[in-house]
């Protein structure tokens, strides 16, 4: 503005030029903001005052600041003129010109000065737009720093007439678009707008009305051809020029798009996840529920929204009370609970509750009813299997025992018959009778020994869990199947550790495992030469696990393809196997805190090892 003033003073007979701006907000004071001329210092004593004038004929009457009384004492100013400076039709101030000559202002001069005043108004308007608060205008429009201020703006600023090249651009818009100022001023809006994002219904409505802002979103093209999304606020100056504030919104848009995508993703998760999801207030009122949970509970979404979840869904009043407290407290919860379905069926669920960032509660619910039933069934089945296997084992043992007793019994019958026949001879062969009877006594003792051994085996079976001396238990088993082993020509080797800790368990069950493994070993050796049939039983104390038992044979070994399935129930490689032996053995070993695994024996046959937890371990 000072430039304008100086231009006026330096170009003709005009002695003095200044710009006054009024504070439009409230105090109605007027300040001189720029000046030039010979007597400019005298302006300090100028007392601008607020008043209203109307301006020249031929134009619509306008409110203007008053012609301030110019009392420039001792000055050479003989005549003066004031041109209103209008921004969007409102007069903000005036351009004042004083002249040495009287009557210096003709129509031509008046027209020229008015153009200058309009130009000042245009510039002022362009600057004021972004911060249209009124009160700051007077202070901010400091004339001296106007263009500097524009350049500090992070936003871009463009001024120009529609469909013409831009008249002005600040640094911000140059940075944004990548042009130099000179280049920028050779371009118009058509050159930089790549695409309207929010298309306007008509060309007319794309023109802002004076005094209003029109917001548009468009893609702008940089010098390098790349485009970005921008928000453009357009305002119209009184002179018809368009001021455009340009803001790069691509980061914001990208963030919004990402957030929308994330929202959609979470929504999708919510809709499709198999777990039930429930969102409630801390009081338990249902805010949202996903389809999976609706299906599990048998309610429609509408039936549950706004209902109190704790009242409606929980099976017992106690549970409801407990969960009400959990929801209110915002503490995390992860436990099982029992829900009631709409039709009254009670469900076992795994329930996780956590507070959401917005202060509500998120509950994730998994229906484990079937899993529970299956677990129970599995337990039942295992118990059954153990029972079946024990009966099977009993059958095997009875066959062995009956054979064991049958031999002496048969011999006793024959000896007795022989004795009678020796006696019936004439003369009776008494020494033969005596020998036969002695054999009867011997064989009867042998039979009763078998029975005593068997009874001790079964008698202890009733006890259930007790302290078990593993070596003794194994010896007993080997004795029981000794006849079978001998008949098959198997050489049994024992390598027992006599410093085993006693273990805590069911003696019969442990013996069942040993019998299973021994009988398997026996079967495995059916197809090898009799003279190479060897069975080795080893026991060792193990610090960590208690006791290790190893049973190995000299058979063909375990088929590598079968290893993975060895312990599967009903998996068998024998024509008459039940496929239960190893499955049950593992079940028993695991119930005793141990584990069982296959291996390779010293002779290349199969080996099985299992551990049993010592008493101390089980109790701990």
């Amino acid at each position: 503005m000072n430039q304008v003033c100086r231009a006026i003073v330096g170009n003709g007979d005009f002695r003095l030029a200044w710009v006054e701006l009024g504070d439009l907000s409230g105090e109605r004071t007027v300040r001189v903001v720029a000046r030039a001329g010979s007597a400019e210092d005298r302006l300090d004593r100028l007392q601008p005052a607020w008043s209203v004038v109307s301006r020249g004929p031929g134009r619509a009457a306008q409110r203007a600041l008053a012609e301030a009384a110019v009392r420039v004492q001792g000055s050479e100013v003989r005549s003066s003129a004031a041109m209103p400076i209008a921004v969007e039709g409102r007069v903000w101030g005036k351009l004042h010109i004083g002249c040495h000559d009287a009557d210096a202002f003709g129509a031509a001069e008046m027209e020229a000065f008015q153009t200058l005043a309009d130009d000042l108004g245009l510039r002022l308007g362009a600057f004021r737009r972004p911060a249209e608060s009124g009160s700051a205008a007077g202070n901010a429009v400091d004339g001296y720093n106007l263009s500097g201020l524009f350049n500090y703006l992070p936003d871009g600023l463009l001024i120009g007439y529609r469909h013409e090249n831009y008249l002005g651009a600040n640094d911000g818009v140059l940075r944004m678009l990548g042009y130099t100022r000179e280049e920028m001023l050779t371009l118009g809006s058509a050159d930089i707008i790549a695409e309207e994002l929010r298309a306007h219904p008509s060309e007319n409505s794309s023109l802002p009305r004076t005094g209003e802002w029109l917001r548009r979103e468009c893609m702008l093209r940089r010098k390098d051809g790349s485009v970005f999304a921008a928000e453009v606020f357009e305002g119209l100056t009184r002179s018809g020029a368009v001021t455009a504030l340009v803001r790069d919104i691509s980061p914001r848009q990208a963030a919004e798009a990402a957030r929308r995508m994330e929202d959609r993703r979470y929504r999708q998760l919510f809709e499709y996840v198999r777990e039930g999801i429930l969102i409630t207030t801390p009081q338990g009122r249902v805010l949202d529920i996903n389809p999976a949970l609706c299906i599990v509970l048998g309610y429609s979404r509408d039936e549950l929204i706004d209902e109190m979840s704790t009242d409606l869904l929980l099976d017992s009043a106690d549970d409801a009370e407990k969960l009400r407290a959990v929801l209110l407290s915002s503490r995390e919860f992860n436990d099982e609970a029992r829900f009631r379905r709409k039709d009254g069926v009670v469900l076992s669920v795994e329930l996780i509750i956590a507070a959401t960032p917005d202060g509500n509660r998120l509950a994730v619910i998994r229906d484990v009813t079937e899993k529970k039933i299956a677990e129970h069934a599995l337990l039942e089945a295992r118990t059954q299997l153990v029972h079946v296997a024990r009966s099977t084992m009993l059958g095997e043992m009875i066959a062995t025992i009956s054979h064991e007793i049958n031999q002496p019994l048969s011999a006793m019958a024959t000896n007795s018959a022989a004795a009678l026949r020796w006696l019936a001879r004439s003369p009776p062969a008494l020494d033969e009778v005596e020998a036969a009877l002695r054999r009867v006594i011997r064989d009867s003792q042998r039979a009763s020994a078998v029975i005593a051994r068997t009874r001790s085996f079964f008698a202890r079976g009733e006890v259930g869990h007790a302290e078990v001396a593993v070596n003794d238990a194994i010896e007993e088993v080997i004795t029981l199947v000794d006849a079978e082993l001998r008949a098959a020509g198997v050489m049994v080797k024992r390598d027992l550790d006599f410093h085993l800790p006693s273990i805590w368990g069911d003696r019969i069950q442990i013996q069942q495992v040993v019998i299973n493994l021994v009988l398997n070993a026996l079967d495995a050796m059916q197809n090898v030469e009799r003279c190479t049939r060897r069975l080795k039983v080893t026991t060792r104390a193990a610090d960590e696990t208690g006791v290790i038992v190893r049973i190995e044979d000299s058979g063909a070994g375990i088929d590598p393809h079968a290893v993975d399935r060895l312990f599967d129930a009903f998996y068998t490689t024998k024509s008459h196997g039940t496929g239960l032996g190893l499955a049950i053995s593992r079940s028993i070993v695991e119930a005793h805190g141990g584990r069982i695994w296959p291996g390779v024996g010293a002779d290349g046959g199969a080996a099985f090892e299992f551990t049993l937890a010592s008493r101390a371990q089980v109790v701990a």
Partner: protein
Amino acid sequence: MTDATATVVVVDDDFSVRESLESLLRSVGYEVRLFASVIDYLASPPVSGAFCLVLDIRLPGQSGLDLQSELARTGEHPQIIFITGHGDIPMTVRAMKAGAVEFLAKPFRDQDLLDAIQEALRRDRERIAGETIERGLKARFDSLSSREREIMAQVTTGLLNKQIAAAVGLSEITVKVHRGHLMRKMGAKSLAALVRMADRLGLSRGQG
């Protein structure tokens, strides 16, 4: 009680059973031989005269059934009585099909065993007698001249003297003389008896 020459061979791995059988069988007058396994038995010298086997089915190593089939392969068919502690039906059927005399489950009645042994020995003696007759017949057949054997073959196929004379190129009278000689040498009192002998010797029709 029974003829003293008969022998009973017992193969059982249980010594109580072995000893008791030995006593019982001796008490009724049999020769008894005891073995604990099939291998032991096979390694022993053969029994002369009538004998039978009392075999436990389940034996260490080769079982009683294994022995039965092995002996059958070598053309021996001794009379066998099986005894077992736990016989099942398939085992019994197999044993009996293979020609076992009896199958007894332990403990058995002594009389059942003795009856079975008697039956077995009867069959064995029959076998021996059959073998004796055959041996005599063979000796007599061997004493014939080659012409007589030729004519015997023709006669036993049912040809008349005249037809035989034409076939072998002799006179009917000469054929008649040869025929009288061979009938006497073979000890055949009739043509029918001679035909039976020819059958037993395996001279089938058409054989020359």
